[in-house]
């Protein structure tokens, strides 16, 4: 049974069904959306249960001809790398729809766009044909453009255009590189192919690979975003509506890191190994730079946005290590960041709904009127800080441990991010929640409703679970990560048989 297709397209179906509900029935629209969003989640849970954790290769593959003449097929598959990202996406959507109770402007379009977006994201995660991947990749961008442009804040148009231009700049080059790969396949094997598994087998000259890798890496690095390509993010995040910010942070950014791990690294292993020191350096700069800039943000949402630059720096640092701990930590941290930063945006959103401002200076002493909110916000904040016992620590620890095995100095510098992370988050929390209530408007704020608690509760449960018992996640990731690393290793080794220039020495500290 085509489980992956079902997961990918049930949201689109849901969007179509929403179209049939009259826009005046706002409550019915919201309820239907929430209910529909549970379907892909249920299917993803089913996938999780049926997933064979012992296998590292693609599972649940589907294949259908699309434009066979050019080697374009509808091909889906899932492995330990994409599995949990799929689950995460479907898990977060119901929470985003719960948040939609706060949306009143053009509600119907909002809900429909969210579902279209979900299909785009899920499709990109399970597509194993590069062309198909590109279609989904671009499909994600369009709803996000509208989400920001229509439901966004004051500078929404600027932010939306900035997002699109930035992203397009990278992805067009990526498209060129993809087409080049298909043609190269034709020259080598005799027929065009966009299939990921075919393209893995290509042996291209190192010079060519470098350019192609650069094209992929640019597209993904913008999406991550890696320093210094990050400046679209604070604007997009700050201007986006809460639901949009959650999706943007939790899932869209992961497309960049996922892209590295799925495409850029395995397709061009020799170059990837070469490039990893650069990636590691940029990642560390991102960690520290993002954290420092966070410290001085007057706007709560912008602060959370910049924190993503820092956290995604960790993700990239782990990946750059190209060893089991680093890459698995990186994957785990993708999930963590999705959950905790998603939670932070929900928390900021809840304040915005009450006060219609995001300026930290407007708040202070909120724990007194909002004790339940305070407790939940606290846990979310601590998860983001990477407190041991919660999810964030597992990811950060594995990343830094892995990175230390390959780039000790980068890991040491990255570890300072652990301090800075505590600085900006705790300081933010103090200024918002603690101290005396200075603004009289804050005295009578209403604490969280049951619906709002329901948005946070699943996150908090996962924070604790993933912090104390990460094994079920890690063991399902490991075979695929191992396979990827083995591919990189063997290709890089055969590329230069002598292990003297350090390029091909992946084995050193690799499989530990």
């Amino acid at each position, binding site marked *: 049974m085509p489980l992956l297709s079902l997961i990918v397209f049930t949201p689109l179906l849901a969007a179509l069904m929403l179209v049939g509900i009259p826009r005046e029935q706002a409550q019915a629209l919201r309820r239907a959306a929430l209910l529909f969003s549970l379907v892909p989640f249920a299917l993803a849970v089913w996938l999780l249960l049926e997933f064979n954790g012992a296998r590292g290769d693609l599972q649940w593959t589907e294949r259908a001809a699309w434009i066979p003449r050019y080697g374009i097929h509808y091909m889906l598959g899932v492995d330990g790398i994409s599995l949990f990202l799929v689950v995460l996406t479907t898990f977060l959507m119901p929470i985003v729809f719960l948040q939609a109770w706060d949306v009143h402007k053009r509600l119907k379009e909002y809900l429909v766009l969210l579902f279209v977006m979900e299909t785009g994201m899920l499709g990109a995660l399970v597509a194993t044909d590069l062309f198909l991947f590109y279609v989904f990749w671009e499909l994600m961008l369009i709803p996000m453009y509208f989400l920001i442009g229509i439901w966004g804040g004051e500078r929404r148009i600027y932010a939306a255009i900035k997002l699109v231009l930035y992203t397009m700049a990278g992805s*067009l080059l990526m498209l*060129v590189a993809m087409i080049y790969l298909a043609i190269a396949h034709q020259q080598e094997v005799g027929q065009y192919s966009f299939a990921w598994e075919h393209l893995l087998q290509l042996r*291209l000259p190192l010079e060519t690979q470098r350019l192609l890798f650069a094209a992929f890496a640019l597209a993904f690095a913008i999406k991550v975003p890696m320093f210094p390509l*990050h400046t679209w993010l604070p604007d997009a995040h700050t201007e986006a509506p809460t639901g949009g910010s959650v999706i943007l942070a939790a899932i869209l950014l992961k497309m960049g890191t996922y892209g590295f791990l799925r495409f850029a690294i395995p397709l061009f292993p020799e170059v990837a190994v070469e490039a990893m020191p650069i990636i590691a350096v940029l990642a560390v700069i991102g960690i520290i730079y993002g954290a420092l800039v966070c410290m001085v943000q007057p706007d709560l949402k912008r602060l959370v946005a910049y924190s993503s630059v820092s956290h995604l720096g960790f993700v990239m640092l782990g990946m750059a290590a190209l060893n089991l701990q680093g890459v698995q930590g990186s994957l785990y941290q993708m999930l963590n960041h999705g959950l905790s930063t998603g939670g932070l945006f929900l928390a900021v959103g809840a304040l915005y709904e009450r006060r219609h401002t995001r300026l930290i200076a407007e708040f202070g002493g909120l724990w007194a009127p909002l004790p339940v909110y305070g407790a939940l916000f606290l846990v979310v904040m601590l998860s983001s800080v990477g407190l041991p*016992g919660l999810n964030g620590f597992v990811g950060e620890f594995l990343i830094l441990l892995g990175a*230390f095995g390959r780039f000790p100095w980068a890991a040491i510098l990255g*570890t300072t991010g652990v301090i800075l992370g505590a600085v900006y988050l705790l300081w933010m929390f103090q200024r918002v929640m603690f101290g005396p209530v200075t603004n009289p408007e804050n005295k009578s704020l209403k604490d969280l409703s049951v619906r709002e608690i329901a948005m946070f509760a699943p996150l908090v449960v996962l924070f604790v679970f993933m912090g104390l018992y990460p094994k079920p996640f890690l063991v399902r990731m490991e075979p695929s990560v*191992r396979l990827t690393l083995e591919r990189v290793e063997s290709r890089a080794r055969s590329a230069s048989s002598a292990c003297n220039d350090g390029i091909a020495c992946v084995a050193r500290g690799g499989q530990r």
Partner: protein
Amino acid sequence: MHEIQAAVVAEHVGFLWWIPALPAIGVLFHIFLGRRVRETVVSVIAPAVVGLSFILASVAFCRIWSGPPGLVLQQTLWSWLPVGSLNVAFALQVDALTAVMILVVTGVGFLIHLYSVGYMHGDPGYARYFAYLNLFTVAMLLLVMADNLLLMFVGWEGVGLCSYLLIGFWYDKDANASAGKKAFIVNRVGDAAFLVGIFLLFWHLGPGAHSLSFTEIAERARHVSPAVLTAVTLLLFIGATGKSAQLPLYVWLPDAMAGPTPVSALIHAATMVTAGVYMIARLHSVYELAPVSLEVVAIVGALTAVFAATIGLVQTDIKKVLAYSTISQLGYMFLAVGVGAFAAGIFHLVTHAFFKALLFLGSGSVIHALNGEQDIRKMGGLRHHLPITYRTFLVGTLAIAGVPGFAGFFSKDMILARAFAHAPILWGLALVGAGLTAFYMLRLFSLVFLGECRADARTKAHLHESPSTMTVPLVILAVLAVVGGYVGLPEFLAWGNRFGAFLAPVVGNGEHAQHHPQLTLELALIGASILAVLTGMGLAYRFYVQAPEIPERLARRWRGAYRLLWNKYYVDELYDAAIVRPVTQLAHFLWRQFDLAVVDGAVNGAGEAVQETGRWLRRWQTGNVQHYALSLLLGTLALLAYFLGRG
């Protein structure tokens, strides 16, 4: 020593997990039901779960006590972090060292929970307070029961979190919230180094799977190069200077006094801050392979002991004096482990837990009676009004000062003797510290309890002894502050050092190691320290009871020195100027000048350039979407052609 350790007898027991789990149940109860039930329910459950934990800890202790030497109780709960060659388990263990620690944590912890019932009565955050306090107990138990370095780190940061939450417990005051944040961040600085230490260790443990368990680390450490071990142990020690408030990371502890006083007693005196000492004792076999690191530990400990004591001389806040005294006493513990006297360090940890908890709770009773007043200049003459507090506080004072017969005497002298054997200069520092301690403690005691009451009339009218939930723990701790010392007598007395013998299978029996002092020398050393203590106490009595004008005269005469001490050597100001402000300025600079000006400037500039070009190109453009799509396609094809041409 190694042969003793080889004889480890492991026994798997199923009840260990209940020891931390019971307080954890308390936490969940307070979070979910605490605000809905009456205060009395919370005040029964919170101490009860810790009390039950104490009973289980006692059971474990007795098993170790009566079992063969080197007995270790173990329980593996689940596989925690399995990634490649890393395979860390969520596993607990209790050996002699841990048995001592869990008794202190749950025992003193129980008394302080009990005391808190009275102290926090009527506070609007009652349930929240006990949720934090129970959570602290969980984390602390995890710290000392973890069977591996990483799980220990979970407890390590967990206690830091609870400390943060409890310092800022009365969150509506900005100062409290800032103090909590400072504690967490300074601790994080240490913890970052601690983490790097773990990384470095992991990558040098050699081939094969690594559980990072203490047994494994001890075994493998022998094959690791001394340079790496030195680096690892120093990095871990930096973590310890954060958690245990040593130079240079001690700055958070005095501020931490902003928390409720029972918290200062439990977390910032008796238990959490001793974690660093425990960590070094736990990893003693690694530290012994890195003598340089041990030397550093000893020196930092001795310096901190004197440094903090000098600041304590002039402070006027009752809790601040005790805070600096805690830092100083922790210095003694580090001095002990640094010179290889691990058992002595832990012994002092235990006796200190008794008398310092007693002193803090006593000060809480005083503050309670004076309606929140903490300035000792506004106290005095309280012996008549608070008889129980007065007597128990006196016991605590004598114990910490090291008066013969009281607990602190035995443990401190054991450290002094070992320090002398190691390096007389360290002994000299410690001796000076002992004299200073005796001085500032008697000063504190005199100003608070003796002489005339200097409080205003209204406060005076309301003076009252605390309720029995508060005085009973005081009495129990006072008893412990006396008898606690008799488990570790000098070797030549009565039953000798039972404490050291009990810990020997775990941390080795340093007493039998080289340089064991001669009896005459040992007696001479004891004589010297008694002399130092008596001098300190005598001076304090003269200064603050007999001739109160002397200190002021001295302060005027040695104005510079006085101001230096009064301002705590300006260390906070130094850190602020050297670290906090430059970092903040850098952050501002990066955001304004780099992010907004350079990167966004370039992006927006590019955008404007495109617009300009667009205006110019508009002549050829119809504004039709197809045209744009076409140009997009053409551009793409052009690039493609270029690439293909190269390939």
